[in-house]
């Protein structure tokens, strides 16, 4: 575990891609030069709007450029955005940890150098596969060789962490093919690996093909086998999992930003479709989110998902918020459990009891007993207190586990 951070994170969504991947259901689009420039202007304009309503005075210690493909934006544009953030928001000093998602074909020594100068410390590469067939199926624009080169170039540029994203569970994918992918990734020695399971969403190209019966999601059994293989292989290779789909070669390489999503650390999201979370009643008690961890209420809101409505509202001087949700103790407790069971750190039972007044294990005695007997969970006591920790078998069914628990909050 890294040192727990309660400082907020900043997320910046860049909704552009050079092409839309057939599996992607994110808020992305292809766009020309002029649209991109207008977008950057709007994103910069959103910063002061959002800053005015942001309740947390603590400096942001992570900044994450995600998308889409932020590497499509010229480094100068990224720099302008960062400048605006520094002007209007409190950023950690000397500098926050900056993450950037990039496509392998955009990774050049020059680009890396520029990104390094911007303060990027984690470069996350959307490799997806090192197998030609899989890359063709996923309609990626790079080859396996390009992907390898990209990782090497990024390493040479001196990023603290190079992360490689892979996708598994393709229709008809064999465990041999997936194992070759994992071996190829490990051979490049990235600090961080994300292995995402292919999900076929209805409104994507793959979804349409699946609806026509041309392809089918890999069956549950095979998915389970690949999942199991992934976790075993990477743990042995030195990249133990710290979350369902995230693996790191040592705690320093774990994502400082993503974990904020999992433990109710505040985050501010800018750009279309970005989500934000703040602790406590928003305007009522700015600054109440102290380090005691006494989360009683949360506030989550999200921006207009589509580029045009988002731009219009920002241009009109409004916050482009499309929806919001106040989270009471039950919603927060549900999320704590749901997200905690997806991490290898598990759920902090003492913290949970202190925050929500419920002994999670006692309230679900029979369930926990059978899950422990089945090897899905263990209850661990240590210097950090009692934790409910999923095993690899448990991680494979984490969503179902969370749903099985009763949360009779007092």
């Amino acid at each position, binding site marked *: 575990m890294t040192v727990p951070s309660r400082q907020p994170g900043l997320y910046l969504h860049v909704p552009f891609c050079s092409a839309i991947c057939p599996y992607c259901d994110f808020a992305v689009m292809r766009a020309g030069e002029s649209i991109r420039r207008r977008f950057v202007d709007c994103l910069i304009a959103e910063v002061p709007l959002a800053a005015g309503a942001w309740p947390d005075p603590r400096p942001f210690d992570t900044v994450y450029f995600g998308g889409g493909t932020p590497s499509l934006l010229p480094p100068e544009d990224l720099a302008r955005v960062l400048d605006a953030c520094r002007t209007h928001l409190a950023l950690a000093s000397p500098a926050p940890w900056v993450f950037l998602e990039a496509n392998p074909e955009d990774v050049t020594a020059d680009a890396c150098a520029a990104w390094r100068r911007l303060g990027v410390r984690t470069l996350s590469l959307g490799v997806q596969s090192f197998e030609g067939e899989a890359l063709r199926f996923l309609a990626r624009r790079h080859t396996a060789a390009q992907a390898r080169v990209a990782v090497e170039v990024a390493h040479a540029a001196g990023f603290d962490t190079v992360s490689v994203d892979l996708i598994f569970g393709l229709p008809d994918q064999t465990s041999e093919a997936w194992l070759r992918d994992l071996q190829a990734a490990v051979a490049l020695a990235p600090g961080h690996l994300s292995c995402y399971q292919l999900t076929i969403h209805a409104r994507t190209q793959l979804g349409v093909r699946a609806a026509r019966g041309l392809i089918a999601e890999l069956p549950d059994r095979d998915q*389970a086998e690949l999942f199991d293989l992934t976790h075993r292989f990477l743990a042995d290779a030195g990249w133990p999992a710290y979350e369902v789909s995230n693996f790191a070669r040592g705690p320093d390489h774990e994502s400082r930003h*993503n974990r904020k999503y999992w433990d109710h650390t505040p985050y501010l999201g800018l750009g279309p479709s970005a989500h934000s979370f703040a602790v406590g009643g928003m305007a009522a008690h700015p600054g109440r989110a102290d380090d005691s961890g006494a989360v009683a209420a949360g506030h989550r809101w999200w921006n207009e998902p589509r580029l045009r409505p988002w731009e219009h509202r920002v241009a009109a001087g409004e916050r482009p918020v499309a929806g919001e949700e106040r989270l009471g103790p039950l919603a927060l407790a549900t*999320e704590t459990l749901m997200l905690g069971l997806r991490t290898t750190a598990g759920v902090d039972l003492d913290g949970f009891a202190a925050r929500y007044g419920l002994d999670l294990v006692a309230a679900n005695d029979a*369930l926990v007993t059978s899950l422990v007997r089945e090897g899905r969970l263990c209850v661990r006591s240590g210097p950090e207190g009692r934790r409910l920790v999923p095993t690899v078998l448990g991680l*494979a*069914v984490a969503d179902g586990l969370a749903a099985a628990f009763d949360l009779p909050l007092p």
Partner: protein
Amino acid sequence: MDNIRNFCIIAHIDHGKSTLADRLIQRCGAVEARDFRDQILDSMDLERERGITIKANSVTLPYTAKDGQTYELNLIDTPGHVDFSHEVRRSLMSCEGALLVIDASQGVEAQTVANLYLAMELGLEIVPVINKIDLPSADIDRVMEEIDRDLALDPFEAVQVSAKLGTGIDDLLEAIVHKLPPPTGDPEAPLRALLFDAQYDAYRGAVLLVRLFDGTLRAPTRIRLMHSGEEHKVEEVGCQRLKRVPTGELSAGEVGYVLAGIKSLSGLAIGDTLTEAERPAAEPVPGYREAKPVVFSSIYPMETNDYGDLTKALEKLKLNDTSLTYEKDSSAALGFGFRCGFLGLLHLDVIQERLEREHSLSLILSAPSVRYRVVLNDSSEIWVDNPTFYPDPTSIKEVFEPYIKATIMTPERYLGTVMELCRERRGVDTRFNYLAAGRMEVLSELPLAEVLFDFYDRLKSLTQGYGSFDYELLDYRQADAVKVDILVNGEKVDALSQLVHRESARPRALKYCERLARTIPRQQFKIAIQGAIGGQIIARTTINPFRKDVTAKCYGGDITRKRKLLEKQKEGKKKMKMVGAVEIPQAAFVAVLRTEDDEDEG
């Protein structure tokens, strides 16, 4: 009185009793053609649909015969199933004659015989009626031979009709007038009226259908029910056309209705005798027997919230069905419900369907059980029809269970399989008789409990639909009964406990376990399903856990959507019943508790 004919129609299900009644009613002009709807006597939707008569009804028909005289024909309907044999008996007792309907293509069946014997025992004159002579498959010669050989009736007395087309109806009416005797009785003697049926009218309360043997009845006589001792003041008497027609009085030999401001049917016993409170008869009409439930099952609403509706629905049904009994019951797995007593399996079926259809309830019924007589070590005796109350085996000295005499009719070629079925079901003293050429009658003494579980369906399938089955209760005999519990991950599912014969315990437990294993969805952990007698495990299956259900995907900060999905998932689980940590969907109970046996064989 000489111009009155009281008769009923005896027929096997589907042999066309109701259609024949319709034709008689139509021919006598008791109903305008425009008011006519088929099968008037079967007034419940369910009866019309299933073609069986559940509640007897009756109607008075004026008929001008060829001799120029006008007769009052009282057609007394009889319920068409053995479960209602007490009602059949009352109906038959109200008549002097019976039409025995036999399907021209199906021939004589078991139930026909059973009811014929009952009619003969009560001294009724029988007129055989061969129906459906219009069918291409009609084999009148064969049926006449069966009438002669199986029923020992004169086949040449038989009237040939087609109720559907109306052929032969005039001949039949003449036969009713000339072959059936008029009633006898003394209009001056103290009143003796047999209560052979009762209906419930939302406005007038109980409508008593009676046959007067002696005396005369008019308003406002004070009447007494001789068995229950209750007294009521008569408000109105009359005869049942298709509607009630007040006549001012009823006298010996007549059939009619009585209104006496009785609020519900629940205190009434079919078979009771009405007499005058002032001048009571010395003896009631003989043959009174209380209708006792023999099959028991607990009924639970699918949705716990529907308990109130179920309560109301049962109260309503009870108004019209004096033989239904129920009391509160509860199950850890299924919540609150009712333990109900039925006259038989069909009665149970009918009640279930009426609750579901007329009251729009979704129900779960526990495995039907008979009532055991349990003698404890201290020689005290208890009756147990609910597995929940079955005493600890060590405290039991002996157990007795009800036996039936089953009459099965089958084509000869299935004799072996039918005998085998009886043997499987612990039949004793199984015998067979040759009836007409190629037809057999198998008699067997079977434990009633063995008939409750898919016996009828098995018989039907073994004989390719040709076998027919009828039964009557015999006596109680010593039994080797055990209580089988079903356990899910070590926790007893009380709603699935049942009392069975020791030899059937293992196969039955296994069947339940397998059905459960097929219907409980896989969960995150392994689920053991076991059948046990006391602490001894006798059957076991397991459900393997999910191997993977998580989407290993990135989702940025959009936790809300993910949580909403999870909340939806939890909502779905709420509808399931929790046993220990295992969610059991209602569908699993329904699947496990169904009595028929289908894909299990594979």
